């Protein structure tokens, strides 16, 4: 038995592999699979029941192959091993007949559907996606009850296999975008996709992009709205997020969940987010530009109070600002890493450092503290952590240009950022465009 020999060899290196001999009716067979993925007693029970039915209808054992699994020739080693990795059960009959691959009862390895961890919903559906791909698709299908939903499944990677699913709404989707996306996925399907960065390269986007090319969301509601808007939703196995393509600038400000509020509040909230982004990118730059290059722009009262708060501060405004910004970024980063139970400590320590001690020590001026606190709070008014990161970066561009050229540099920085955003497009869809459904398409 060549196949069994191979499997035994493998078992010596992979303790998880089981090779289990049982009798199905009167035929001796060997069951092979991964212990951690297959619930063996339940599966055997299932097999026994099915075999009993087959025997009752007086057909040979192999007939079960027609009913419950598919055949693989014993010589097709690669296919057998692939099936085992995917968590399938392989039945090898003792004679030289082809073996049978079948869906076992698998162990429950993903959590149940829970509330979202990274997004908060105040009004709207609360269940979030999980790590299990099929569960996710199920949730989306339940959310979008329509026969226009199309689903394509791909296996990505050669060494590290991962299942990916593309969902789109027939009729709403931008067909040229979909075609190019599918082409990109199909032509790179042998590439391993362990993380979203490689997904980025696989789809042909530059790795140095400062703006995320796909949004991620945990909420089925958002995914379903995106589908209706004509976007493509992609699920990766073991990733509890829906990946929404293409990402547009509007996604930073407008969440579909906003539509659960009255229209006026929706508009006000969205305006607030735009203001938040502007504050976040511009405020540190404005401070440095006004304090060190163009104090004439300030009103005299403000100029005097800022000047008063800066008396005795040893560093120029730019050093002062960068110093405190870096501290703030450190606190933000630490807050993500820390377990929730220690999270309060960092708030307290950070509060002491930034609130009082830095000012008392005359390291920075207290006006700067106010400005940077506003900046940090404002950066999280945007939707999605991935978007918050990109605007966190862009404020440094504005800051440096403002330190060099003052108010002129501030505007130069805004122009640089706008030009950069305008240069981005994914599969022919510009980043600075509004989503439009098929009916409104202009060509």
């Amino acid at each position: 038995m060549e196949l069994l020999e191979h499997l035994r060899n493998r078992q010596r290196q992979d303790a998880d592999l089981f090779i289990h001999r049982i009798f199905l009716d009167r035929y001796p067979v060997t069951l092979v699979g991964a212990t951690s993925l297959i619930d063996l007693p339940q599966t055997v029970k299932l097999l026994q029941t099915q075999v009993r039915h087959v025997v009752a209808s007086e057909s040979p054992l192999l007939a079960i192959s027609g009913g419950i699994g598919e055949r693989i020739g014993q010589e097709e080693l690669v296919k057998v091993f692939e099936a085992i990795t995917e968590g399938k059960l392989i039945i090898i009959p003792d004679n030289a007949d082809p073996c049978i691959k079948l869906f076992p009862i698998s162990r429950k390895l993903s959590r149940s559907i829970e509330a979202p961890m990274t997004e908060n919903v105040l009004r709207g559906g609360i269940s979030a996606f999980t790590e299990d791909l099929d569960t996710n698709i199920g949730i989306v299908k339940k959310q979008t009850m329509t026969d226009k939903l199309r689903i394509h499944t791909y296996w990505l990677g050669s060494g590290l296999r991962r299942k990916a699913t593309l969902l789109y709404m027939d009729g709403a989707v931008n067909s040229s975008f979909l075609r190019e996306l599918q082409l990109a996925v199909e032509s790179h399907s042998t590439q391993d996709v362990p993380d979203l960065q490689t997904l980025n390269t696989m789809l042909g986007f530059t790795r140095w992009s400062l703006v995320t090319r796909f949004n991620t969301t945990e909420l089925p509601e958002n995914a379903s709205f995106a589908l209706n808007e004509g976007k493509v939703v992609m699920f990766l196995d073991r990733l509890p997020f829906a990946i929404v393509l293409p990402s547009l600038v509007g996604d930073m400000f407008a969440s579909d969940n906003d539509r659960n509020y009255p229209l006026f509040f929706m508009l006000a909230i969205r305006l607030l987010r735009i203001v938040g982004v502007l504050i976040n990118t511009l405020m540190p730059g404005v401070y440095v530009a006004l304090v060190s290059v163009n104090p004439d722009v300030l009103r005299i009262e403000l100029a005097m109070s800022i000047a008063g708060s800066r008396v005795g501060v040893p560093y120029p405004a730019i050093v002062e600002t960068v110093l405190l910004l870096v501290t703030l970024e450190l606190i933000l980063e630490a807050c993500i890493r820390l377990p929730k139970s220690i999270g309060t400590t960092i708030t307290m320590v950070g509060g002491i450092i930034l609130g009082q001690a830095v000012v008392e020590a005359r390291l920075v001026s207290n006006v700067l503290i106010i400005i940077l606190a506003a900046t940090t709070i404002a950066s999280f008014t945007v939707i999605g952590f991935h978007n918050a990161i990109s605007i966190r970066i862009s404020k440094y561009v504005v800051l440096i240009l403002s330190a060099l050229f003052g108010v002129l540099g501030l505007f130069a920085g805004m122009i640089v950022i706008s030009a950069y955003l305008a240069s981005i497009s994914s599969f022919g869809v510009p980043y600075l465009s509004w989503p439009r459904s098929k009916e409104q398409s202009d060509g």
Partner: protein
Amino acid sequence: MNVKNVIPYASTMLLIVGMMTLLCGCWDNKDINHRALPIVMGIEKSEDDYQVYLLIPMKDQDKNSALVVSDKGTTINEVIDKMNKNLEMQIDLLHLKIIIFDRSIAEKGLNDSLSSFMRAGDVSPKTIVTITEHKLRPLFERMNAASLNNGISLYDYFEKNAGWSPHLAQTRIWHVFRSMQSETKDVPVPLISAGKATALESSGSAVLRKGIMVGKISSDETLMFNAFAGMGSQGKIEVMNQASVLIVSDTLSHSTSLVENTPVLNSKLTLKVTIIETKGSPTATLIQQELEELWTARYIRMFRKVQSNRADILGLGQLFRNKIPMDRLKYWRDDYYPRLKFNFRIHAIIQNEGLLKMKE
């Protein structure tokens, strides 16, 4: 992007960033706490030199104090340079709010100093111009002693949203500069002196003709000027010991004609007023009549005064620009303006009659 592509790309970026930092000149930027920001500048002539005073608010948050610096030199810039040398901060005139000229300078003309301020751009054209008839040192000492909030509040004296009153002319550098260049418009400049209880006191306005002081008008006449310029609301007028009224709004309409080379101007000023105080029980019609007569007479008197000075502070020449040929405009002040026939009428509308009705 593979390594081969990255290297030229990265080196280009490095070059751009390097050039930007090396060539920008940003090391000359001075932080705000290293700049002295004077609020008031005083200029007087002593013999042939300029004596310049600066009132610089100090930046200590807890203390309210200001510093008065003064020095002498042949030009204003030279004086500022001398002060710079002696101060531990750099003087930045961009926040200068008030310039006080000595009367003797104003009578010789503000042209030199103001046009150099306009040209150099280191003083904001929005800066208020004033003239004083007294010595500058006691004035500055008084301002330093009496002003709150490091002297910043001195600026509020002239701020429309703060302590300004319509009895005070509000003239900025660019107004004076415009009058220096224009053939048909002059400006009044507030006359100030050190106050007794307050920091500043105003005693009317100086009349500037092409940047040269030629006369004076009183505070009440300044109110009339402001009403003529559309800034008279909130101004109060006493009517013949019988009532005092408050101007709520004023509108002005003109018609002009040139009869045998003599300019004729018919103006009608509509004042909407409210009565704030009465003595006895005058009727509304009486107050209205007296107000109209009183103010018409006062207007004509003020007009005669500035007409004899040949200074067109009301800007009446502006109304004749479409009637007088371009090449004759330069004779406006000396030829046409002294011959101008000014027919002025005031129409007063009393808006609150309730108080009077109650008294009846």
